[in-house]
């Protein structure tokens, strides 16, 4: 019990003292024999008063302090810091709110407001008497980060982390790096292709000693907490020996009899069961698609590097933080959505981009030359009825860029943009300008009257009530209809489920605060980057990658983590492990443990947030929350209701 407590009652200019008789409050509190010193002050937060408090606490050797002033949201940290500056543990400082809870709330009743203020301050004094000095937990942090996804966001984050000095495990589920960006050719605004960007990042990453890349790899188990996270990684084999001979590989691909749609080209082309995405793909080592492989053995006959004996490998790694850069999936239109899969010349934007890549002099789709291209915007985004209410941000720019590319590449090509308002925001506006100067035609409709794709004989007709032409019904004979599909979250959310990353209403990974904490998740130590968090263009993905890398590194940079001491504590004598606390804990901080032959609950100190959810469910009252013990809280209640 503290016996030399200092109490400061604040006027707050008049905010408090106009309604609460602060002198009376002080006089009442002074009666408590544990109160060694009591003062009123015009502004407790003023520099001069803070200095006086430091002097008081230090010179008079006070062992507890209370300031009765405004909301703790505003100044708790201010006075905790004052206590620390004076050499008093900050947990021996208690804040009493007599402004929001007394003077402002009861400005019509000065006597009542004063009485309430006295009770509130008494409660604070009761708690401070029973307060203990607490020190933060210090946990050693592993100087390593797992970056999940080796697309452009993952690669950039990995390089940033490695350059900061962290060990980086770059974990890619596919067998090749580069993600979506590797699938694109020219990009706005530079002439650099997606492949060139990826090559640049790949070279840099591979030349950095701190980065280890795993392809065909997935995290399958996760334990521990921020600073010390243990991950189990499953690495699928490529079924190829590492030192390959390029000549024989070509033959092996040639002889493979299995033909499957090529996902890299969004199924507009096919590939073999032994493949690489394109020449120069990274890593430059083909892979055998074992799911589709028939094990006919043809490739083995011509290529000595094929190795069917390779098995899954498992690797345990320990990291301080996990950075998720798992990217997005392109929206897959429903059957017959704008004629998709029911009308023969309807493709998606990603397919169109790959098509333009493969067609040199003439744009040809399914054997027919394409002259008129109709782009239908916002397919799968900004849905009125569907779940995807959001704008996918990148598609207007990407479409116009693709349209200009096609227009410049092929003679006499005409572009028709069926849009719902063009959003080439920021610097991308110049593309819109260029496209309309090139003669691209823009037609616009509202969401309730989307364009219609229909078949008239062997012709494909796109019809719209164009609001730019006074709602006139207009039609275009299209040789190719391109559905501008937006971004959706990865269909496979296994990593999100494993790490318990909450998802937003849009189903992308959710940040803590959209504006102020944009790359952190509620799971300590896990940050998110790139389009895994929501639709982003490359530029925006880079911003978030660098932010997430910095945030992840800041957790482990000092080699140890300082964690709040106000967490749950188990009374081993009373606990009989019923598991109810474990069920109630939203952070999985409680585990069953054996203490001298007795099964009891144990708190993982680096995971517990001190939320208190476990305490009321414990049938034997074996859990205390440090800093908010039953003893402390009950004494406060007693003080609040006492009448003397």
């Amino acid at each position, binding site marked *: 019990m503290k016996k030399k407590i200092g109490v400061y009652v604040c006027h707050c200019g008049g905010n408090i003292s106009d309604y609460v008789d602060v002198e009376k409050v002080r006089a009442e509190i002074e009666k408590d024999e544990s109160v060694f010193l009591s003062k009123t002050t015009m502004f407790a937060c003023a520099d001069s008063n803070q200095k006086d408090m430091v002097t008081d606490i230090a010179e008079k050797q006070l062992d507890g302090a209370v300031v009765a002033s405004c909301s703790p949201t505003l100044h708790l940290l201010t006075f905790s810091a004052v206590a620390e500056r004076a050499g008093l543990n900050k947990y021996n400082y208690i804040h009493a709110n007599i402004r929001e809870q007394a003077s402002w709330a009861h400005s019509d009743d000065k006597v009542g407001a004063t009485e309430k203020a006295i009770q509130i301050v008494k409660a604070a004094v009761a708690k401070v008497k029973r307060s203990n000095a607490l020190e933060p937990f210090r946990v050693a942090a592993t100087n390593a980060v797992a970056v999940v996804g080796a697309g452009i966001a993952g690669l950039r984050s990995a390089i940033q982390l490695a350059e900061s000095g962290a060990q980086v495990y770059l974990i890619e589920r596919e067998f090749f790096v580069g993600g979506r960006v590797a699938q694109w050719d020219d990009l706005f605004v530079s002439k650099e292709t997606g492949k060139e960007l990826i090559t640049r990042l790949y070279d840099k990453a591979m030349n950095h000693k701190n980065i280890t890349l795993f392809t065909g790899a997935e995290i399958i188990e996760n334990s521990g907490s921020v600073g010390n996270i243990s991950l189990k990684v499953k690495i699928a084999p490529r079924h190829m020996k590492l030192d390959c001979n390029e000549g024989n590989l070509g033959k092996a691909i040639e002889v493979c009899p299995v033909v499957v749609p090529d996902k890299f080209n969004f199924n507009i082309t096919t590939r073999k069961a032994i493949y690489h995405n394109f020449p120069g793909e990274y890593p430059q080592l083909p892979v055998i698609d074992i799911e589709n492989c028939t094990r006919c053995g043809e490739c083995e006959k011509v290529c000595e590097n094929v190795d069917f004996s390779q098995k899954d490998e498992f690797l345990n790694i320990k990291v301080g933080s996990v950075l998720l850069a798992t990217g997005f999936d392109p929206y897959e239109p429903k059957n017959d959505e704008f004629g998709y899969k029911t009308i023969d010349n309807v493709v998606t934007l990603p397919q169109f981009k790959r098509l333009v890549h493969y067609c040199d002099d003439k744009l040809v789709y399914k054997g027919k030359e394409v002259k008129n291209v109709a782009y239908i915007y916002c397919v799968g985004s900004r849905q009125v009825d569907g779940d995807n209410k959001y704008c996918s941000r990148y598609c207007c720019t990407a479409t116009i860029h693709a349209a200009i590319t096609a227009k410049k590449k092929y003679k006499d090509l005409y572009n028709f943009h069926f849009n719902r308002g063009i959003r080439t925001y920021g610097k991308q506006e110049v593309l*819109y300008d260029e496209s*309309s100067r090139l*003669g691209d*035609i823009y037609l616009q409709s509202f969401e309730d009257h989307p364009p219609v794709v229909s078949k008239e004989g062997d012709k494909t007709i796109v019809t719209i009530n164009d609001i730019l032409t006074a709602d006139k019904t*207009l039609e275009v*004979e299209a040789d190719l209809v391109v559905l501008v599909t937006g971004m959706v979250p990865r269909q496979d959310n296994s990593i999100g489920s494993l790490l318990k990353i909450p998802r937003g209403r849009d189903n992308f990974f959710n940040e803590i605060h959209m504006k102020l904490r944009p790359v952190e998740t509620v799971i300590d130590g896990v940050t998110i980057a790139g389009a895994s968090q929501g639709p982003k263009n490359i530029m925006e993905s880079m911003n978030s990658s660098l932010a997430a890398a910095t945030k992840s590194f800041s957790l482990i940079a000092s080699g140890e983590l300082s964690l709040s001491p106000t967490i749950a504590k188990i009374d081993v004598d009373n606990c009989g492990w019923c598991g109810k606390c474990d069920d109630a804990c939203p952070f999985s901080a409680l585990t069953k443990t054996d203490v001298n032959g007795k099964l009891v609950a144990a708190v993982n100190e680096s995971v517990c947030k001190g939320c208190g959810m476990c305490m009321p469910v414990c049938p034997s009252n074996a859990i205390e929350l440090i800093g908010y013990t039953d003893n402390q809280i009950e004494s406060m209640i007693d003080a609040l209701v006492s009448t003397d």
Partner: protein
Amino acid sequence: MARINPKFTTELQSYGAFDTNACYNCGNCTAVCSLSDEDNSFPRKMVRYSVLGLENEIQTSLEPWLCYYCGDCSATCPREAEPGELMMSLRRYLTSKYDWTGLSGMLYKSLSTSVIAFVLLAVGVIWFASSLNFEPELLLHYGHYFEMSAIGSVFLLILLPNLIRMWNMVIRKPKVNVSFSAYLKSYSELIVHMFTQKRTLGCDDSQTRWFQHLILVIGYLSLLFTTVFLDWFATDSSFILVLGYLESAVIFSVTFIFMIGRLSKKTQVSKNSHPSDWFFVIWLFLMGLSAFVVRLFIDLDILETNIWMYLIHLTVLVQWAIIIVPFGKWTHFLYRSFAMYFEKLKSLSIS
């Protein structure tokens, strides 16, 4: 339902239109246009039709004729798409669509064709004159005879059929239901607009352009009357003599002002001059001036020794009557006033 034809803009550009692709549908042109109202979006509707290549819609439209080119739209266009000049080009386009001979289109689209036509006619006149041994009396006689017959034949063979084609495009084909009495009731509209161009009054802040244009029209029509029917070059009446001098002086003075305007490009309307604009204003100027000088030569009694002067006048006259009147810019005199008439008919139509 209308099908989009992006190739149309290329054709329209051969009539003088600027970069129609520059339009990004902001609607500034409509906001400033004094002709625009809730039902009719001037000139954006026509801009949009042009960009989309809706030829049928353009051909049934009267809007291009209802615009008198104040140029406010071009001046306020943030993309410098020159909507005013587009309307001008649409008038040229429509003129060639109304013309059954197709010569209008050829002359509008190709400067060299126009030049060749002018040269051929000049050669023709000189050849004809030489076949008469440059006999002044015969030349004047045939010149007068040509004037009278040209008026009649150009009107009957070219202008009347073209007006009927215009009516067919804007009234009959779109199935505008007009009662016979409406045709009779509205004819005053035609006469008033033909001789006053009063619609221009709503377009400009200053009335100067309207006034200059008005006296030019009156001067031109009355000089035509004075030379053809009052036989100015052979008259003995001093009243007719002075009247002719006055009328021709009005013509070459006003057209001189117009030419200066087109050269200085100070107003929006004179900024962009298509060859057909120059031909129109220069030939009108030459007509007024040469007529004036010819009559002066007669009065000074030196024409017989200087018959070249009459030859110049006759050449200008023939070129004017055979190229500019039936196939050139002169036709706007008719189409504009008939457009007002047809517009009135449309408003009276039973829908």
